[in-house]
């Protein structure tokens, strides 16, 4: 049955993770993500799940990778400083193709930065925080409702493509209480990883298959295989064979590249006749939307392109829009991380509206820029 509740983004994330089937959470509480751990420490035991507070974020990532290999959907939650510590093992999850979900409720950085204040300065870290060419998916909810829905989608992506998925929230979405309609559980699509049907003696954990996503065998079910961060062949054991190394790296990255049309998600509003396009994601979208409507009221044809899936990035879709619209404004709570991607996608000089003082970009600031470029 549908339910209407007032919830924070952090609470919605925790509840949605349980609905998605997550039964193992390992984490180290950090503002502004702590409520996710708090809620799950109470909720997981109620559904026969496990909550464990680890000694740090490095160990938290290690624990969820291990739990996932044993067959349990797993998650951790953190903020900037913890996200930095998780990078090494995020790379391990990408390399070993272990489905995990990492929540980063962004606060101001670098370093300890602004513990209680919002920011969007980890968007590039979500893409390139760990070294090496690696696949990753990152989603950015802008409301509590989005957070619920995209947490479930994050697990689905992770299970389907065997990749780490990052949920990039920010302090505003994480701590905002707002109305949310929780759908009937029977109406929610839940995707589970594909398990191997090969017998244990024939099982190759990193087999090349037509769809580039090898079926998984869970530890403890009679299958024995090696998991390593070293480049490996189909058997999972390290290899120095250039051909096999090349094939592995290309396959794990192709896994996202070839399915990006299924993964990329954005919404446009009032773009049909627009002269100015705002590109926004996360909580900043809320300011952008307000600015668009105020601009329209003032007779300026402004529209909105809201990015829900940041990585993979909608380069081609923005390129298409830049055929007709030449002016792009990108409000962000950082110094212009996504602005560069939009610039690259649209081959235009974009206009940035940035705040890094712990306050949200206001609709008024954006409106001022819209008016300025529309003169």
């Amino acid at each position, binding site marked *: 049955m549908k339910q*209407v*509740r*007032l919830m924070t983004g952090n609470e919605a994330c925790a509840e949605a993770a349980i609905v998605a089937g997550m039964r193992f959470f390992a984490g180290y509480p950090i*503002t502004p993500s702590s409520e996710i751990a708090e809620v799950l420490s109470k909720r997981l035991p109620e559904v026969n799940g496990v909550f464990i507070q680890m000694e740090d974020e490095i160990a938290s990532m290690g624990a969820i990778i291990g739990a996932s290999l044993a067959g349990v959907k797993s998650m951790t939650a953190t903020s900037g400083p913890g996200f930095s510590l998780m990078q090494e093992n995020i790379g391990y999850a990408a390399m070993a193709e272990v489905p995990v979900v990492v929540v980063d409720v962004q606060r101001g950085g670098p370093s300890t930065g602004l*513990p*209680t*204040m919002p920011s969007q300065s980890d968007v590039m870290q979500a893409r390139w925080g760990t070294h090496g060419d690696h696949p990753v998916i990152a989603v950015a909810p802008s409301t509590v409702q989005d957070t619920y829905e995209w947490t479930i989608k994050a697990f689905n992506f992770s299970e389907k493509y065997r990749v780490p998925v990052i949920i990039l929230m920010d302090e*505003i979405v994480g*701590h*905002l*209480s*707002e*109305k949310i309609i929780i759908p009937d559980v029977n109406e929610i699509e839940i995707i589970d990883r594909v398990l191997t049907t090969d017998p244990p003696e024939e099982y190759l954990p990193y087999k090349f298959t037509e769809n580039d996503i090898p079926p998984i065998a869970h530890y403890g079910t009679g299958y024995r295989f090696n998991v390593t961060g070293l480049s490996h062949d189909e058997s999972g054991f390290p290899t120095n064979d250039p051909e096999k190394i090349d094939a592995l790296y290309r396959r794990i990255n192709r896994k996202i590249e070839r399915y990006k049309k299924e993964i990329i998600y954005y919404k446009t509003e009032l773009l049909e006749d627009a002269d100015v396009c705002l590109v926004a994601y996360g*909580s900043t979208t*809320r*300011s952008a*939307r*307000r600015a668009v*409507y105020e601009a329209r009221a003032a007779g300026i044809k402004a529209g909105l392109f809201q990015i829900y899936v940041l990585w993979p990035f909608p380069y081609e879709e923005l390129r298409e829009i830049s055929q007709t619209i030449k002016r792009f404004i990108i409000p962000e709570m950082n110094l212009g991380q996504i602005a560069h991607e939009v610039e690259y996608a649209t081959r235009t000089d974009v206009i940035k509206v940035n705040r890094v003082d712990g306050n*949200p970009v*206001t*609709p*008024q600031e954006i409106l001022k820029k819209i008016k300025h470029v529309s003169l």
Partner: protein
Amino acid sequence: MPFRYEIRLSGSGGQGLILAGKILAEAAAIYDGKNATQSQSYGPEARGGSSRSEVIISDVDIDYPKAVNIDLLLALTQEACDKYWKDVKEGGVIIVDSRFVSKLPEGKFKVYSIPITEIAEQKTGKSLVANIVALGIITEITKVVSREAMESAILSRVPRGTEELNLKAFRAGVAFAQELV
């Protein structure tokens, strides 16, 4: 223009302003069937430091969730009052706790100086529930949420075992404000 009502509850950490904001938002969004958001801004300290909780109530979807043109300001410290009264719009309302705020702002808004903490102490024996007394006062003065919705929201949000105490505090706030308006 769609209806948009902006509330800022301000004071110091530990005064229960975030809980008060959540109760207001829940009353409006769940029990009165409107839309509401509650956001917060606080320092890294566990207690003390400035704390602020903002509630937006609207009859349409709420995009920007922060208060910019305040309809109602609650200030429980002089510092909060000094810092925020300028954001109150013309015709808006400022409610202060007279025990902590002695210097009152002047402008095109209505100021109510009310012994909020004293009411809490006298009517319930606990200064702790001053935040809930303030909610009773806000409900009665602004009428932006219904009294029934507020009581339901209080019952759903306060710790178990403190329902009676909090309802008593809320009703004491309502009763005091009824004498004023």
